[in-house]
């Protein structure tokens, strides 16, 4: 007879924990279909009109477009930067190479509220406040560690022997980079791009310091809206956001088979 290493108490705990983790998500989904004009329980009826109002709201649409522009820009710049750093330091994993890698991943350790303040003060000198470039630089810095992780992970699986063979056969370093290294680490690069986009798209603290009228992103619009009112329309926006990033994540996991957790 085998006794289980856990008791009923643990099962009960797990059920309660799941309820706790999922309650706020489920409630947002439910309320997004409510007919009421403001938050109210019990629910009044079922409708899709909140979704219609959400996609017709000019603030949300501009915010979404700004988030897209900054997100895509950040993804490309951060991935290129990550590739340069990983490629440049991969042959010297000790000493200066490790130092550079540590430096480039250090933004993970600095609270965003501190980075936001730092960028606000510094960029106001460079006339970068309320510009796409300013936010793009900030987002690139916080995204870089993720990009380096993705590319670094696929570089671990990289077969250096093919590089040696190519070299013996007379290939130049440029050819080796484009024809041998890049194709082999392309899953890492693709996931760095998507991850970079998502980090930038979801970031809401630094952008609060840096964005103004011209560059308000979707998270900032949502926060501004929430200050004034909390209603089913904002729930619909949240659900759309959840679906959007959920699909991108699913794409990374299923299509690229990259795991980063």
């Amino acid at each position: 007879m085998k006794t289980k290493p856990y008791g009923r108490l643990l099962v009960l705990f797990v059920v309660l924990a799941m309820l706790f983790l999922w309650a706020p998500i489920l409630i947002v989904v439910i309320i997004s279909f409510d007919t009421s004009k403001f938050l109210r329980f019990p629910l009044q009826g079922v409708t899709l009109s909140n979704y219609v109002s959400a996609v017709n709201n000019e603030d949300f649409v501009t915010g979404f477009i700004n988030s897209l522009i900054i997100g895509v820009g950040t993804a490309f710049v951060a991935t290129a930067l990550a590739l340069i750093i990983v490629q440049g330091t991969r042959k010297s994993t000790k000493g200066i190479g490790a130092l550079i890698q540590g430096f480039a991943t250090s933004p993970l350790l600095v609270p965003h509220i501190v980075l936001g303040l730092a960028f606000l003060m510094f960029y106001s000198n460079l006339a970068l406040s309320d510009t796409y470039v300013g936010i793009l630089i900030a987002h690139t810095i916080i995204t870089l560690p993720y990009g380096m992780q993705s590319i670094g992970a696929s570089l671990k699986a990289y077969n250096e022997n093919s590089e040696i063979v190519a070299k013996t056969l007379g290939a130049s370093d440029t050819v080796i980079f484009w024809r041998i290294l890049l194709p082999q680490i392309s899953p890492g690069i693709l996931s760095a791009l998507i991850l970079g986009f998502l980090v930038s798209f979801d970031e809401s603290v630094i952008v609060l310091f840096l964005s103004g009228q011209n560059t308000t992103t979707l998270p900032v619009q949502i926060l501004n809206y929430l200050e004034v009112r909390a209603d089913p329309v904002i729930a619909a926006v949240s659900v759309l956001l959840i679906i959007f990033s959920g699909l991108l994540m699913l794409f990374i996991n299923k299509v690229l088979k990259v795991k980063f957790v």
Partner: protein
Amino acid sequence: MKRHLRLSTILLVIAVASLAYLYLVPLVYVLRTAFSEPSSIGFSDSAALTLASFKELATNPYYVKILGTTLIISLMVAVMTALIAYPLALAIVLFPERIGNLLLIFVVTPMLTSSIARTFGWVVILGPTGLISSTLRTLGVAQPPQLMGTTFGISLGLAQIYIPYATLIMSSAFGALNQNLSYAAQTLGASKMMTFKRIILPLTANGLFSSCMLVFVLSASAYVTPQVLGSGKVQTLATEIYDSAVVALNWPMASALAIVLIVLYAAIMIIVNVVKAHAERIRS
């Protein structure tokens, strides 16, 4: 052959130099500004170094209270994490593998949804016309207790955001936990409680401690959740940094608060590492 090598080195130098200028220099600015004369127009005019902001922080009850509130919220979130994430992580390791994996997916998925959306979910649950208040009112409670605008409400929101991280870290740190050890103990006559106290807890205490500390520092620096769920009634270090910087335009004070936050961060990281090293020394 040489040319390409040089190109990648040149690119690397450019990358590191721009990173140093656009990331490191702004952080040094924060450090420098924290020691400037307090201001209401952003930067200080005078270049003199002063401890004025820090003196204000230590003596003005307003700031002392903010520091206390921040620590209380962080502590509550850490306790909630221990109570919720720890059993979850144990279940993931101890349950049959298929159920454990399924559980892991259910824990991680909320992590992938926008944190603003989840914070809004708490507004729906805790708000004045929200789920809890409405339910209590229907049950006959005329004036249901308000959870929004309290440190407890904020802690709930933060715990929901950080528990998935903590669970992930713990469940991977609990690899040392071998199910057979528990079987062995129970075969030898140990009760479940005894097995937990003598086998499971000692093997997992370190992972539990370091994840709770991580959650503690993350909570101390969170901005969005305290801002939204605090509904203007609760100030934390992070919300005060934002208000000082953007509303009051007192950049030296905002910087001083940022330094306090970073020192708190560093102190806790050091504690975690010291405890970890100590635990390893005991084991060997």
